[in-house]
């Protein structure tokens, strides 16, 4: 990815080059490498911070315990359900909205700048906003529902509905993200291709399925990958809206690690969960990269 440049090597410049990289090395080591290695080590120990006891070597005991922990299994299930449903809704709706916004009129340009609002505000703020709107008794959404004769819904308090509420807020934040990125890749298509198809009498649907979709497919896959991996980082919204509840209905991997490690101070145990998390994330990333290389090969 770097353009190779002919460089006149002088010893002074080599020294400066290394000096220039040192701050980044130091910061990334302190905040990423050392903690990662440290966490990996801790995952083999029984260690609770609130007990005045030295860590006890536990082998793979923590890992065995995790797989027997129903809460962990539930968190994984919820997280996968959340990721698959949220990302598929975001991708399909986002792509449709991108096709609707791809002309060049003033109104659509205004809409595009408005679209950026939900995705740049803090997820905490988005969660708070919707927490107010969806309040069971005083929320405006329930009021509108009763206005048209529907029963009021306990959006956050009902364990069957809470996860869909989280999915909804996630969609509200990230459908714009998908739409804007897909839109910018649609606008990178040579317009002559589309004009030629239109002259030949292709319907908008044909233009979309035969030209736009195949050309933007690689970008769409990348966006899906980013969103899918981000869906496993969801923390802020859950923390503000449901705290993983009611019961454990919206407990997901990040909140699980947070609860075990920071709340219950089970340092070793939650490190083991984090290690499992890294492994599965790497597998997912590898799968997506595989998919993408395959596709690049097909295009040639």
């Amino acid at each position, binding site marked *: 990815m770097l353009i190779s440049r002919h460089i006149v090597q002088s010893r002074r410049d080599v020294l400066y080059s290394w000096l220039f990289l040192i701050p980044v090395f130091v910061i990334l080591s302190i905040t990423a490498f050392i903690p990662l290695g440290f966490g990996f080590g801790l995952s083999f120990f029984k260690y609770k911070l609130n007990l005045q006891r030295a860590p006890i070597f536990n082998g793979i005991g923590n890992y065995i315990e995790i797989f027997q922990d129903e809460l962990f299994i539930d968190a994984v299930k919820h997280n996968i359900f959340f990721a698959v449903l949220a990302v598929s809704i975001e991708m399909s709706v986002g792509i449709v909205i991108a096709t609707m916004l791809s002309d060049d009129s003033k109104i659509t340009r205004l809409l595009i700048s408005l679209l950026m609002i939900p995705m740049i505000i803090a997820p905490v703020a988005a969660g708070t906003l919707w927490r107010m709107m969806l309040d069971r008794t005083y929320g405006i959404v329930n009021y509108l529902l009763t206005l048209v004769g529907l029963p009021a819904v306990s959006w956050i308090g009902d364990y069957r509905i809470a996860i869909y509420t989280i999915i909804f807020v996630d969609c509200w934040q990230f459908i714009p993200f998908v739409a804007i990125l897909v839109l910018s890749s649609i606008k990178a298509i040579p317009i002559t291709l589309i004009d030629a198809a239109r002259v030949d009498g292709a319907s908008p649907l044909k*233009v979309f399925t035969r030209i736009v979709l195949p050309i933007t497919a690689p970008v769409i896959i990348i966006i899906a990958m980013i969103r899918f991996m981000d869906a496993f980082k969801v923390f802020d919204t859950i923390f503000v809206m449901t705290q993983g509840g009611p019961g454990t209905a919206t407990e997901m991997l990040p909140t699980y690690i947070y609860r075990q490690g920071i709340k219950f101070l089970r340092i070793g145990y939650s490190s083991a969960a984090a290690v499992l998390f890294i492994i599965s994330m790497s597998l997912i990333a590898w799968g997506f990269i595989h998919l993408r290389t395959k596709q690049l090969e097909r295009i040639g």
Partner: protein
Amino acid sequence: MTKRLVKQQSRNYLCNFLGFPTRVIVLIFLFIIILFPFYWLITNAFKVEQEYFASPPVILPSRITTQNFVDAVVKYDLFKGLKNSLLIATGTSIVTVLAGSMAAYTLINGALPKKLKNVFAGWFLVQKMYPAVLVAVPVFYIIRSLHLMDNVLSLILMNTSFNLPLVILLMIGFYQELPYEIEEQSMLDGCSLLQRYIYISTPIVKLGLIATGMLTFINSWNEFLYAVILTVYRAKPLTVSIAGFITDKGLIWGPMAAMGCVVVFPVLIIMWLMQKDFISGMSAGALKG
């Protein structure tokens, strides 16, 4: 007239396959669902207390009060949160842009073997992928042992780490666009790498630096996970204080809405200032990964 028509047509990518009426309905719905929550937030921030609990909900407040903001300042330490948020976001932006631009410059123009540079660039890419929560527990433990808990510095450090990879990737793009002749000429004139970085190249990409700095500012302003883990009282930023309004007994509506406004609006202003840069920066950040 015809010329304008042609120009307009030539940029029309519209491939809406659901028909005109659906498009209008969807776009109007989109408009409402994006903007209404913000309208609700602002009006709630200025409503008097009994109007929160009125049924039907008050869409247009009849009385406007600033009591909620006063409460947020007096009872809930709005200014302390604001100060912390500003310190964290500004500190992070400065450190990240400085360290990031130095690294990016070296990766483009530095006197290192090309293979080594590619290894570093690849490393920064991988760094961008992993979720922050993975190191949450070890970082919590380390910061606690170093007695840096509840300190703005530890949050600046963590936020810098999360934003560095993206900033480096964006800055590599900026430095790459500079014509190499400039570098070559100043090298012939005997400038060292340091002098070229400070006096020649960086002033040209200044706007890019500002844009990435603002992106970093927004990211660290919005950050929540580490803010909630690493702060207790003194260093609490706004995002953590706002989450504190949601209690088991219910919401503390007025001050929560007021503080929500303070969290949201600086970001909107920054976005408005740098709209174009933002889209291109974001798509570059997303798609280069």
